């Protein structure tokens, strides 16, 4: 029994990968970019559980990958250009998903498709334009960190991100789990 136990303990190194903490920066390289909604819509409405970030423009600024370090951004497209709300992709519009271990995901929604849009591996590269595809009232970047589909909030509350905080690409807005 002891021999077998020791063998299996030696195999602990091959356990399922543990979730890791990532660093997310703002998605817009404009110092005017700000967080508009966090845990509640417009910071006072119904539950949102995500960050909405905008610089008040539509289809003119890059929507960048927010995670520091190379990540695989899987792209879900098919929505045409829009600066007003549509139901495309269930309201998500064009979006990307970064998958982590054990059901963790990081998503960025409402991308305006352009030549940069598509599934790819990169470090804070352009994913498209800051736009309003999907159920989006005013062009913005929606970012959420989910586990098995449930939106978590600690990834941005833990670093003090709240309404009005800078969403500039040099500013850390959260530490999502992946």
């Amino acid at each position, binding site marked *: 029994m002891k021999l077998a136990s020791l063998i299996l303990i030696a195999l602990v190194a091959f356990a399922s990968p543990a979730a890791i903490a990532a660093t997310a920066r703002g998605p817009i390289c404009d110092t005017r970019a700000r967080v508009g909604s966090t845990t509640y819509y417009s910071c006072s409405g119904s539950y949102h559980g995500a960050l909405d970030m905008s610089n008040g423009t539509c289809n003119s600024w890059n929507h960048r990958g927010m995670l520091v370090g190379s990540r*695989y951004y899987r792209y879900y497209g098919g929505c045409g250009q829009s600066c007003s709300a549509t139901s495309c992709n269930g309201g998500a519009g064009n979006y990307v998903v970064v998958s982590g271990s054990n059901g963790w995901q990081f998503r960025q929604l409402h991308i305006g498709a352009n030549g940069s849009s598509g599934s790819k591996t990169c470090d804070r590269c352009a994913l498209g334009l800051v736009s309003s595809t999907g159920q989006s009232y005013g062009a913005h970047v929606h970012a959420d960190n989910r586990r098995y589909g449930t939106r978590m909030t600690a990834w941005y509350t833990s670093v003090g991100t709240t309404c009005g905080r800078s969403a500039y690409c*040099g500013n850390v807005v959260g530490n999502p789990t992946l």
Partner: protein
Amino acid sequence: MLRPALLATLLLAAAPARGDVAADLPPDVADLPPDVADLDDRAAAPALCALPAMLDAARAGLADGSDAYRRYLAALLQEAALTLPEADLLDAVASERDPALLEVLGRALATRASHAEDPGLLQPLLDRAALDGDPALRAAAVRALRATGSVEAMAALGGGVDYALLVQDPVPEVRAAVADNLIAENRDVYGGRDARLTAAAVEVATAATDGQVAARVLAEIPLDTATPDAVAAVTAALAADDPARRAGAALALGSAPPGDGATARALVARYHRDDDATVRAAILRALARLGQASAIPTLRALRGVAPALDPELDLWLDVLGLELQEWHLILREKLRRAARAAQHDTPDTP
């Protein structure tokens, strides 16, 4: 302690500057009217800074700074690399002779390449990894590629240098760095699931003459997304001479697509034939992972084949009987019980 003047130099280099913007724009944004295109990313334009001064500071800090300071210097150079003059960075990577600094510089170049989506920038680093005469520098160049999307970048460059080539390096440090890179890239870049990474891992394990490296790669990179050919290659490794390689192959097959049951049958056949306890333990775990609760009859049928492993087999049967729904929960419970059993087996007196 960092000198104020040096700190100012480093911070200046790392700070986004204003100026030329077109190079950072995707083609269709660059094609927008000037009043629109000029708005985009103006703050992320190249900085005017001197790389040699940064390298002098980094060289000194990497040599005698604390771990935290070394990490800080590496992170600072990585961020500065996004805006440093490209030619200076390429020259520095091509000529650096200090392994610690080459690793940091190479990581900075890889960050630049990933940010700019230009794998061609990695060529000097790949050349160092494959061709440098100093094994410490080759290993440093390989480590610099860790978790940077390097498998995709190597494929995009045409496969002149890839991990299947690098894993045949005569020096163990380089080979170990290859395994570390693949494992880290699979976990950090792809969240543990990517068909291209899996294919590269199987190719590396097949090409590796180092059984320990092959075993690590096989054991730690799941085959969920593997093609039938890749699964067949790993199944063939169950017959390898090296027990470590056989155990690694068995663990890997536990994460293979269940398919028509051929993988489970190959594992059962190997369990009957193998005489190595580690390999047999790995096979039990693979069968448990493949079938979870439905593997109970298969595991029961193996009782008595290797009596020394029967207590281990019974532990798996007990845990699978709980019908936990996810592999990581099953494994955690199994390891908890194994640790408790080992504790109870330890005699109180010599």
